[in-house]
């Protein structure tokens, strides 16, 4: 099936006589196609997209002079379809995705809390990103709202959030967080349990909302990448690359081949670093500390190599618009190769122990199962999706340089349990090492940075396969050449609802390991 040949069928589905969208009349956006549609066709499009089995991948709104522009993103295989419409005022409302795409529930509530957009037929009107830092009739992303806010003083706790209760004999409610017991990010989990069995768990996030979308506005391109690298500190490279890609598209800048290849090395290193840490942490959550110490040792070695070769342990600020900040010399390439070899030497000594350690199997196999159906319905991405049979990887399906010239193995499993999510990550480490070797073997010579012009007004969109999965960034430059709108869509928007779903029927003590096997980002989601 060639790219976008499903689109004419989809367009035909939308209408019999009056065309909703003409497949030939599009504007390129990122790797996909952008179509403008009438606001009264919005609901039809969403409904038919769901019916046609398109994946929903994100939604953002942009306050413009004449109202609010809403853009939604669908995908099929490696094809991206963006639909855009405009409403004169946020309060006029627009149809919700949530009846068809349950994972849209929170992103729409986020848009309501920040922009005031009313989502018609949305069945869940509770606040989400807003706690008590601003009143419910003020909307921070509206241009008139000052970035500094207008409610100085102490912010009260958000203590009366209406959680969904389960009632019945013997049902206990267990509140957890926002300050958690470990060294992790804050968020609140509300369990409804009978004895140890979890009937339902509801997440309450938004605690680390830092106003990223608001404070992005007015920045120059370099300032935006610095911020993008801190959307989620464990995903510095993926978010920075997505933002760079979006801005480079908007400014029509071609990145030198050497810079692109180095970016891929950085992205794969970030993937390996996080997987090493998480595999150890998953084992630690079921008290198999041997693996925890082995993997945290490997991760530390890996981070030190990053410090030595790239100058930063977590690879922050290595990407800038137009290229990368630091070149890698021959000694650096040799060090990276040796790092890959060293990891390859180490893993065969540890992985077989994980494979047939009975007490580990006992805790991981069959725990926290996310069925393929649920994963599709919730739009699960990255290793969460791939462990549940969703064969999706931006690097292979929508390849950008340098992945268009690389061999990549994408592991997929079907069982959808914690064991599968751990196994997928192990396989992804192996695959990343192969990708890095190819990058280093064919590292192009030349510049690492293209000149960065003052961009004209325009927009762009970046898509990369970060370690958690498909990572999007939308950027629009205003006429002053500064950022007017930035929306980073972390894969965690999709993994948090998946966690709520897969935890049902498990026991409370299994929650930490289930949570770790998903490892959603709080910061990347709360923005």
């Amino acid at each position: 099936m060639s790219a976008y040949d499903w689109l004419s069928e989809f367009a035909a589905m939308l209408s019999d006589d009056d065309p909703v969208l003409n497949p030939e009349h599009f504007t390129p956006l990122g790797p996909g196609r952008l179509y403008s549609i009438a606001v009264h066709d919005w609901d039809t499009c969403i409904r038919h997209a769901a019916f046609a089995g398109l994946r929903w991948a994100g939604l953002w709104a942009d306050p413009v002079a004449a109202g609010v522009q809403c853009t939604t993103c669908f995908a099929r295989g490696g094809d991206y379809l963006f639909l855009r419409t405009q409403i004169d005022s946020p309060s006029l409302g627009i149809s919700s995705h949530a009846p068809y795409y349950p994972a849209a529930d929170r992103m729409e509530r986020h848009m309501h809390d920040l922009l005031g957009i009313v989502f018609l037929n949305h069945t869940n009107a509770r606040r989400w990103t807003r706690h008590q830092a601003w009143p419910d009739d003020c909307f921070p992303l509206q241009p008139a709202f000052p970035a500094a806010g207008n409610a100085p003083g102490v912010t009260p706790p958000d203590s009366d959030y209406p959680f969904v209760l389960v009632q019945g004999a013997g049902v206990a409610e267990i509140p957890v967080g926002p300050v958690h017991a470990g060294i992790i990010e804050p968020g609140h989990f509300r369990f409804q349990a009978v004895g140890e069995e979890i009937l339902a768990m509801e997440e309450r996030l938004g605690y680390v909302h830092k106003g990223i979308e608001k404070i992005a506005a007015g920045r120059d391109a370099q300032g935006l990448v610095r911020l993008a690298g801190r959307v989620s500190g464990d995903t510095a490279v993926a978010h920075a690359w997505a933002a760079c890609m979006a801005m480079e598209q908007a400014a029509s800048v071609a990145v030198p081949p050497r810079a692109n290849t180095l970016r891929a090395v950085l992205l794969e290193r970030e993937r390996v670093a996080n997987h090493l840490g998480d595999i150890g942490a998953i084992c630690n959550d079921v008290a198999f500390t041997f693996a925890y110490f082995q993997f945290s040792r490997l991760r530390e070695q890996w981070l030190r190599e990053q410090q030595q070769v790239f100058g930063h342990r977590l690879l922050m600020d290595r990407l800038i618009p137009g290229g990368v900040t630091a070149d890698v010399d021959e000694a650096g390439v040799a060090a990276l190769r040796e790092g890959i070899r060293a990891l390859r030497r180490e893993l065969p000594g540890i992985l077989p122990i994980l494979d047939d350690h009975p007490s580990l199997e006992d805790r991981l196999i069959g725990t926290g199962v996310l069925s393929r159906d649920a994963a599709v319905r919730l739009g699960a991405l990255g290793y969460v999706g791939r462990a549940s049979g969703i064969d999706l990887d931006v690097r292979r399906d929508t390849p950008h340089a340098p992945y268009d010239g690389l061999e990549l193995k994408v592991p997929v499993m079907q069982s959808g349990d914690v064991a599968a999510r751990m196994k997928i990550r192990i396989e992804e480490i192996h695959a990343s090492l192969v990708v890095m070797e190819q990058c280093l073997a064919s590292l192009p010579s030349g510049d690492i940075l293209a000149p960065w012009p003052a961009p004209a007004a325009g927009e762009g969109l970046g898509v990369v396969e970060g370690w958690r999965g498909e990572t999007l960034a939308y950027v629009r430059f205003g006429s002053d050449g500064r950022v007017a709108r930035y929306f980073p869509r972390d894969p965690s928007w999709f993994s948090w609802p998946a966690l709520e779903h897969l935890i049902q029927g498990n026991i409370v003590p299994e929650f930490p390991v289930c949570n770790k096997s998903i490892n959603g980002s709080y910061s990347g989601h709360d923005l």
Partner: protein
Amino acid sequence: MLRILNKLRKIGVVTEPLPHQAPTVLEEIGAQLRGEIGTQFSGSLAIRQVDAGSCNGCELEIHALNNPIYDIERFGIHFVASPRHADMLLVTGPVSRHMEAALRRTYEATPAPKLVIAVGDCGADGGEFGCSYASCGGVAEVIPVDAVIRGCPPPPERLMLGILEAIRHRR
């Protein structure tokens, strides 16, 4: 089991005499940490880490203190699950307005001497996120701070040095 034992034997002790760049200086830091903790905290310093709005970068590096290479427990430092068990709060920022109340409550729940260290550039002054409708800025905007460890994020060695300086300064 034999394979586990064999692996343990082969890897041996990887815990470092202390960080790689300047072993002598940092070996000394470790010894000094142990000494200070010995005299000031009867050999055991309990830390409660609080993420008050961080991007998670600082958490990753604080986590690394527990890996076998730094193994901070050997100096008597351990991370605890409740502020009620803590001598010290290690707070990363910026403090989001939505975490403001939780941070104040955590501080109130901590018994004396409740030392507070603001970690990272964001914990120091709001860093990349500054002050906004959603961010209070640095930790000191919300609770009293005894010491600051800068960096984005501060690597494990700098964290250890910062903790040492904070407890030494207290004397």
